[in-house]
């Protein structure tokens, strides 16, 4: 088995430069690791103090950390974010010199630190809880009413003011999954949501770890690219965003197609790949590097994509690319079977509004945020913002990109990369861009053979972070 598949540090070969890198790599990697951990701890401890515009009003879940930090201001937040991002870039450059244990330990530590801390940046998690409690505690349909319908509920005061009148935009599967958490009380539900996000993130990283060697990629690099990503840790995981659940299901579908059902077993596909390379029985390894899959794997992959769609509508993206790439019936049947089952359940529980996930997508597509790239481009051309005609132009651009990618996939282009490009195109052309939207393409980019996708995804993320930095250059006081 190769050193990459084994996850052992690679020997740095070459002349004097290579030797110098090998000597300095552990020290540099150590510094980068310390910066990542220090920045994360700083944000969590300062965030636990509360009373900050960056920390949503929240029930006390991290009060025991509150005495250790100071109120989180924009300046400290941005310095921590920029330091984290620089250290992340350094660590990615050094990823191939790290041991597998180092990479796993770092990603685990970052995840657990933000898990123990307060909710950062966003109030979305309180909307999730409000929708769950509307249905399970108050008997109100979250697809017909916003949290305004449960003013007396304790969670109402924590819902973002822009969302109090807005009915849920999430899929019926997610709403059903979140219902039991609504019964745990407010604090219990917050921890439940945090745990769900942590498990989804961990599951995604395990799948990436197992898929990367099958694609001929370094799994330490892939793991760090996703698991130590600043937007992944500080925005998505620390905010307990349900995008992580959608991403997990999407990556599960990809893993099922790339490495088969073995990806879910303890003795996973990496071991199977090793067996196959050694000539022992196991999954067969194709010329493409993919372990052969069964019809059942393909059906489950189709079902996993539909499950992702029923969490958040954008989860649908990989399905057409998978179908066009494989041109087999099993993924379609798997997708259709789950769609029918969940649609029936959703219709019974929520009525017709719970089934119509396109309506929520249409509604959200009309929103405008100051961080979106279309808004920035409008400002560049002297316009105050985007207009309805711009929405239409952006939709046309997105359709053109998707058609091009479908055509390329038909001709044999990697469907995983095509899905990732589409996720990225949606984020970039959307007038409503939030940090966690730029994460949709990241896990697929990490296991894609088209390395341009990873470069483009990280570039977009760097621009997003750069756009946050104005208060650093001119603080308002």
């Amino acid at each position, binding site marked *: 088995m190769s050193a990459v598949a084994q996850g052992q540090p690679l020997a740095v070969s070459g002349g004097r430069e290579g030797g110098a890198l090998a000597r300095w790599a552990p020290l540099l990697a150590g510094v980068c690791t310390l910066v990542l951990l220090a920045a994360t701890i700083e944000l969590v401890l300062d965030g636990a103090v509360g009373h900050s515009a960056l920390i949503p009003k929240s029930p006390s879940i991290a009060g025991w950390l509150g005495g250790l930090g100071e109120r989180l201001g924009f300046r400290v937040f941005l310095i921590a974010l920029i330091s984290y991002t620089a250290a992340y870039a350094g660590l990615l450059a050094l990823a191939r010199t790290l041991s597998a244990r180092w990479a796993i330990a770092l990603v685990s530590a970052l995840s657990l630190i933000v898990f123990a801390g307060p909710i950062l940046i966003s109030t979305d998690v309180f909307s999730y809880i409000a929708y769950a409690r509307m249905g399970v505690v108050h008997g109100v349909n979250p697809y017909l009413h916003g949290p305004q319908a449960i003013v007396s509920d304790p969670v109402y005061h924590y819902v973002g003011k822009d969302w109090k009148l807005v009915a849920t935009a999430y899929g019926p599967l997610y709403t059903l999954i979140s219902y039991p958490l609504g019964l745990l009380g407010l604090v219990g539900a917050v921890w439940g949501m945090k745990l769900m996000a942590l498990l989804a993130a961990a599951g995604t990283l395990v799948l990436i770890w197992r898929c990367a060697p099958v694609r001929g990629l370094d799994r330490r690099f892939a793991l760090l690219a996703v698991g130590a990503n600043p937007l992944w840790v500080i925005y998505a995981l620390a905010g307990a965003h349900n995008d992580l659940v959608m991403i997990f299901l999407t990556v599960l579908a990809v893993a099922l197609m790339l490495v*088969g059902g073995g990806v879910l077993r303890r003795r996973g596909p990496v071991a199977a790949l090793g067996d196959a390379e050694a000539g022992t029985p196991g*999954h*067969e*390894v*194709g*010329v*493409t590097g*993919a*372990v*052969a*899959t*069964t*019809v*059942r794997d393909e*059906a489950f992959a189709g079902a996993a994509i539909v499950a992702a769609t029923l969490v958040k509508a954008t989860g649908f993206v990989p399905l057409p690319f998978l179908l066009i*790439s*494989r*041109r*087999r019936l*099993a993924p379609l049947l798997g997708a259709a079977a789950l769609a029918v089952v969940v649609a029936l359940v959703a219709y019974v529980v929520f009525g017709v509004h719970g089934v119509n996930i396109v309506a929520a997508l249409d509604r959200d597509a009309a929103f405008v945020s100051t961080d979106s*790239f279309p*808004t*920035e*481009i409008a*400002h*560049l051309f002297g316009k*105050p913002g985007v207009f309805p005609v711009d929405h239409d132009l952006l939709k046309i651009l997105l359709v053109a990109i998707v058609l091009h990618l479908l055509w*390329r996939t038909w*001709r*044999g*282009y990697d469907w995983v990369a095509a899905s990732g490009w589409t996720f990225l195109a949606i984020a*970039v052309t959307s007038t409503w861009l939030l940090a966690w939207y730029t994460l949709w393409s990241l896990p697929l980019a990490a296991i894609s053979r088209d390395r*341009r996708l990873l470069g*483009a995804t990280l*570039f*977009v993320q760097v*621009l997003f972070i*750069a*756009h946050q*930095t*104005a*208060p650093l*250059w*001119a*603080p*308002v*006081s």
Partner: protein
Amino acid sequence: MSEAPRQAASPRDGDTTGWRWLGGWVRLHARPRASERKGLGSLRLAETTLLILFGLLLAIATANDVRQQTHVNHRLNADLATWRAVTGHNYHSIAIEQDVKEHTTRDTVCGNVSPGGPKQRTQLCLRMTGPVHADRRKVRGGYYLPPRSEDEARLRYGCFGSAVQAGLCVR
């Protein structure tokens, strides 16, 4: 469903399983491919060029937005300093509202006229316009708001300067 593993496709042949019943030409074009056909180098080059150009546009737009926001923050700082200089109160809980309707540089800055929590006392709102000179802006007018109230037209009183001309006070 079958549990038997399918043979993985080779890049040359593609996976022909289930497609043998098709005619030769259709089979050639409709079968799934494990990798792209050769000769797409120019397409990849065109895609990469477009990506780089689009990336440049996004980078310029982002830098421009940060520059603009930095200018706005300088203006807001001047607004705050002006309010403190005019009222003689060095308060920190001062609210600024920008003109998001007409996208002018006219800002309205409101703060308490006596010590107290945010919006807990009678508030003086000053309308400021024009460029920043020596970290200050010109006050063109203003109005008052009663304690514990938001800036709503029905609550404003005592308009002066440009606020009178704009008809901001209804009482």
